[in-house]
């Protein structure tokens, strides 16, 4: 894994507002804000200047029921401006609704249940069948408080920890980059949750191959 090659927007912006690099490309990627850094890095490394990136707020991760309508709206707004549109989301807790919507709109999405799976590689992730693992990515490691700790009320009511995480055994940090500080942050998250810690270097997994095939479209 290499360091990021491109400047990226602030995590808070990615979380709450999203991000738009519209610059006249013929392909548009509509993505989760949690994937912005990785997609921008792949774009920069591969010279995919013909692919624009528009990210929806990453906090939708915590409200899966809002993802499908938000993607539908984004596709509808952009379809007259681009030759092809691709959706950089997995199922992400939509229970198949995003897949159905994408099929109806005639746009492709990333195969797999969620980014944990496609970062590790869908086949490998499924084969592990880890039901007692809680996952973090680079983005979620940096945004742990905003995506996990505070929404679950653990900042105010730490006594709820057992109810939420009592059946979990380990926190798996799926690392997209080799960042010792972030590894320590993720390890601290595991400690806070009272879980064992495991770091798995995934790089971008299936995301790279998927974007590569779309770049040729």
């Amino acid at each position, binding site marked *: 894994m290499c360091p990021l090659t491109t400047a990226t927007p602030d995590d808070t912006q990615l979380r709450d507002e999203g991000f738009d690099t519209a610059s006249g490309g013929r392909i548009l990627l509509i993505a989760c804000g949690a994937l912005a850094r990785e997609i921008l890095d792949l774009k920069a490394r591969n010279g995919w200047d013909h692919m624009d990136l528009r990210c929806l707020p990453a906090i939708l991760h915590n409200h899966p029921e809002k993802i499908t309508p938000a993607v539908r709206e984004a596709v509808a707004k952009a379809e007259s401006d681009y030759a092809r549109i691709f959706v950089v989301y997995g199922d992400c807790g939509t*229970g198949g609704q995003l897949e159905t919507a994408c099929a109806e709109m005639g746009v492709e999405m990333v195969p797999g*249940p969620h980014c944990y799976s496609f970062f590790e590689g869908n086949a490998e992730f499924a084969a592990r069948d880890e*039901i007692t693992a809680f996952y973090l990515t680079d983005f979620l490691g940096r945004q742990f408080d905003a995506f996990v700790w505070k929404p679950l009320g653990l900042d105010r009511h730490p006594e709820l920890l057992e109810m939420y995480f009592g059946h979990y055994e380990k926190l798996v940090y799926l690392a997209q980059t080799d960042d010792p500080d972030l590894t320590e942050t993720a390890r601290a998250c595991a400690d806070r949750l009272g879980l064992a810690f495991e770091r798995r270097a995934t790089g971008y997994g299936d995301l790279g191959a998927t974007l590569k095939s779309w770049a040729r479209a």
Partner: protein
Amino acid sequence: MSDEEDDLILSELPDEELVPQMHDDLYDGLKEEIEEGVNILLERGWEPYRILTEALVAGMTIVGRDFRDGILFVPEVLLAANAMKAGMAILKPLLAETGAPKMGKMVIGTVKGDIHDIGKNLVSMMMEGAGFEVVDLGINNPVEEYLEALEREQPDILGMSALLTTTMPYMKVVIDTMKEQGIRDDYIVLVGGAPLNEEFGQAIGADGYCRDAAVAVDMAKEFIQRRHNQRAVG
């Protein structure tokens, strides 16, 4: 909460003020106050079933409504549930002794591959509060566990829960196996969980999809009533 409210002495409140105060305390997740309120009402000679329904279930119903309406969120509901659970722990042995009405029996569990039980536990608690006997199978249940429990417990209702879109299809495995064994129609099958919806419930052949614990209770009562009516005319 204001200092004035903090100074409330529950034992000095008349019943008609104590019960609404307990609703407030439940809403605020005040476990010790709920335990105290339950004990006060018992001392005043209230039947355990009346305390359960009028003080606890009625209070939790308000919590459930405000959760549905987006006024309360999961952490607050869990705190309220913990408070109610503490009150129920006092009442449960007394309910058995005093012959509280029995609505029916439910076996409930989270499906195979899924370790999430917050929703299931809320449903169990509210079902118990509504007078159902609940046999909780816990988490990560393969079809064999469900079938063994149905055989052993002979419940009226089977409840299945899942939080993950990857695990919810397993509910169909259980229902299809029940069909294969010719026992599907012996039970009312209710399903629930955050990623589920009405269409999914219908598609897998469940009798009902319960979007929250309150709906689960209402639906369970309705199906039990229908069953009784069918048997009465059958």
